[in-house]
């Protein structure tokens, strides 16, 4: 199973209780991985209210994942 590097920002970091982790997963897309994590950590936000970045670039939720990919789920932003 590929190992994925995850980093959590804002409320996701709080809900996951960590800022980062390396995780083995059998899920093959970013969207499916989010659902797995949502079940594990109880993330409040549905994927439809977020975006996902793979290797520091925005990608569609259907993006397939491979060993070593760096994945960040992007909750609604609030900078400025």
């Amino acid at each position, binding site marked *: 199973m590929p190992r994925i590097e995850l980093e959590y*920002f804002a409320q996701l970091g709080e809900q996951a209780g960590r800022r980062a982790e390396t995780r083995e997963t059998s899920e093959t897309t970013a969207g499916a991985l989010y659902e797995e994590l949502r079940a594990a950590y109880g993330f409040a936000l549905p994927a439809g209210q*977020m975006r996902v970045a793979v290797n*520091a670039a925005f990608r569609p939720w259907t993006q397939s994942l491979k060993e070593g990919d760096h994945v*960040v789920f992007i909750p609604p*932003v609030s*900078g*400025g």
Partner: protein
Amino acid sequence: MNRFLIADRAVDIGALRETLLKPEAGGFCTFEGWVRQTNDGRLVSAIEYEAFAPLAISEGRSILDEVMERFDITAICAMHRTGYLPVGDLAVWIGVAAPHRDAAFKACRYVIDEIKRRVPIWKREHYVDGQIEWVACHHVG
């Protein structure tokens, strides 16, 4: 000239401004975002900003590239802070130099609107009553 910075400490904005001084520019517009003492009627003591820096920087650069293409401007720079900022602190700074004022104003406004809309930065408000909350989004990220 087109530079987007994420800074984890205070930046000398006088120095940023100086990088934008160009003899072909006649108008210069800046926008600054400051930590305000109230939000939605609640008393704020500070705001903590968190950024996913690599993506924030590339997304910020995309915004500045768009601006250079869409508006007749000479030079532009934007900076967003991360970390813990008490009331009154500077959270964001944008400066735009242009031959004429109309483009300077419009480009500056475009940049702050797009930063708020798309750059992966989040804020957590610290209230005077001791509560701390991630701020409900401006927009879907």
